[in-house]
């Protein structure tokens, strides 16, 4: 795979970020997360074609966990709570997209400062990784429902995967697989939790959970 296609994948990741910022339905966000997971699973492919079976496994694992299983768990959790829409995020769509642009610019500026670039698309990769991390954080604080925070968390996690590819061509294989397993476990626990919250509170609006203070 040439570095042009590599850059195209990274740009598509940025587009999914903006898409999630701009949508008001959680199911659609979950599908966008699935798309983002599939895009991420393409990133180790150049190494796989260069003859690394581990990169192949990593790609397959990412596709399985981030592209299929996690979105399925998320969509089931959303269906079980009957709360499909984003109930007034703290910032409106226009403001969040604008903030997304600010984040992107900042990420390009900071991404260029990460030491030791070695490959031609490294600068773009660092910037996209950082932008995805920051977008995930922003979504976590900008959504009222529990599902929204989980979506933000998953985007944050995706950003770290991209940045780890930028810094060191990904972590060692065993660890990368352990992390994937851990993330899958986290998604299952989050899904179970959303259902318990829904059963206990009969809503999942975390901004209304304000009993514990001081």
């Amino acid at each position, binding site marked *: 795979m040439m570095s042009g296609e590599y850059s195209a994948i990274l740009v598509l990741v940025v587009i999914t970020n903006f898409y999630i910022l701009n949508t008001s339905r959680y199911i659609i966000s979950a599908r966008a997360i699935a798309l983002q997971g599939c895009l991420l699973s393409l990133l180790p492919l150049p190494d796989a074609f260069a003859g690394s079976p581990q990169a192949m496994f990593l790609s397959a694992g990412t596709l399985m966990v981030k592209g299929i299983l996690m979105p399925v768990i998320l969509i089931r959790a959303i269906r079980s709570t009957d709360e499909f829409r984003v109930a007034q995020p703290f910032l409106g769509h226009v403001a969040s997209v604008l903030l997304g642009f600010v984040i992107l610019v900042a990420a390009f500026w900071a991404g260029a400062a990460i030491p030791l670039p070695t490959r031609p698309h490294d600068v773009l990769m660092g910037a996209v990784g950082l932008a995805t991390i920051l977008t995930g954080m922003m979504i976590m604080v900008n959504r009222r429902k529990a599902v929204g925070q989980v979506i933000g968390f998953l985007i944050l996690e995706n950003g770290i995967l991209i940045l780890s590819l930028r810094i060191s061509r990904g972590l060692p294989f065993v660890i990368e697989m352990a992390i994937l397993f851990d993330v899958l476990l986290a998604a299952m626990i989050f899904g179970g939790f959303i259902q318990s*919250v829904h059963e206990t509170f009969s809503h999942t609006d975390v901004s209304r959970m304000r009993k514990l203070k001081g």
Partner: protein
Amino acid sequence: MILWALAAVPMAGALVCLLIPRRQAVLGWIIIGSAIETVLAVIAGVGVYRVGSMDACLGHLALDELSAFHLSLVTGIFLLSSIYARGYFNQEPFDPTRDDRQARKFGALWFSFLGSMVGVLIFNNVGLMWVSMESTTLASAFLICIHADRLSMEAAWKYLIICSAGIVLGLLGTVFIYGASVSAGAAGEEALCWTDLVSHAGQMNPSLVKIGFVLIVVGYGTKIGLAPMHTWLPDAHSQAPTPVSAVFSGVLLNCATYCICRFIPIVAASTGTPDWGRRILLGFGLVSMVVAAVFVLVQRDVKRLLAYSSVEHMGIITVGLGLGPAGYVAALYHTLNHSVCKTLAFFCAGRVGQSYGTRNMESISGSVSACPVWGSGLLAAILLLIGCAPGAIFMSEFMIVRAGIAGGHLAVIAGFLAAVAIVFCGALRPAIHMAFGDTPEPVGALRGESTVMRGCVVAMTAWLILTGMWIPAGLTAVFQRAARLIAGM
């Protein structure tokens, strides 16, 4: 061999819990299981101190002086909490209709929690250490809301979200350290093995290591409860069932501190100066102490008071870690003292709270005469926690102050002493109010009192007072040898 056994016992324990039909049997089994684990940990620890560090599984599992100390502490406190859990849950059953099922769930999660903490300590690979730390969050979130009421659900959700997001930054930091390790010529899994990281830290790219260390302190610091990432801690500690609060405060926070300790020698060797990393730790430690001191003054819930005291003590330990080799010894000693003392305090506060039917400190008075063992235990524990002499915590705080003055950090020590003084005054008033005064109404009798547990309370108090006056020579050697590892020697 023994490392494999240490990893296997919690897993087997969790599976057995799912097969046991009756609640009483589950509560009995968690005592047996954690006792086995404690015995194994102590044997392994003694072996490490006699013969030197051990490893297994091609160097992926390892135990050295630092992790052996923490491992014995973790399993010991866990065993005490398991014994306590039996009496506690007999007084306050889970949900009466689904009692046996909930007990099974509790037991399985309890062992998974133990297993993930043991994993943090025995993995030699800092990547796998991170994975275990993340799984402690996943295993323990449901433990907080085992009663599934609104408040505990809110606390558990907050815990899950804040700690997951925080600890992910720790992963990012680990990635930067890995990048630095690759830049120093390492490759593959060895590039994240702690022993290899330390040996070639001198050749690493310092700017990658610096970014990584800041992220690691913020990430693991969320789990330690360093301010301003501490917001989950008082909620989780106050809403969880008391045995769970005790384990959270007594050992989970230590495990996260242990993770940061592992990166201190790497940063020192890579940046060429030990001061850079230490300044960050001093800053976070002091801020935590000051924030905790302010919040201690306004607490009404006794478990929240103890939770903020944990934030303060984690700040003290972090300041100790920021003061160099003498500070490392003091910080490790303080870790031991805080774990024992905070566990004791939670045990007593939980039982006193059950007896009065409230955790509001204004409604609790005269507990020394109403329930002598737990009431006086609570008074003693709070007095020791705020640093009354002669107590072990007083001694370790004194050692930290001495290390700070010797290192010339006078401003830090001034802030340290001011925060300790504020906490002292803030916690003394409610402690006296709870202990003495008129007992309000007929106080509920406690069921499930066991002589063993009362003996534990007396023994823990005696230990804390005794080691304040005289530290056994063996214990000093333990701290000094563990501190040498943090110093990278």
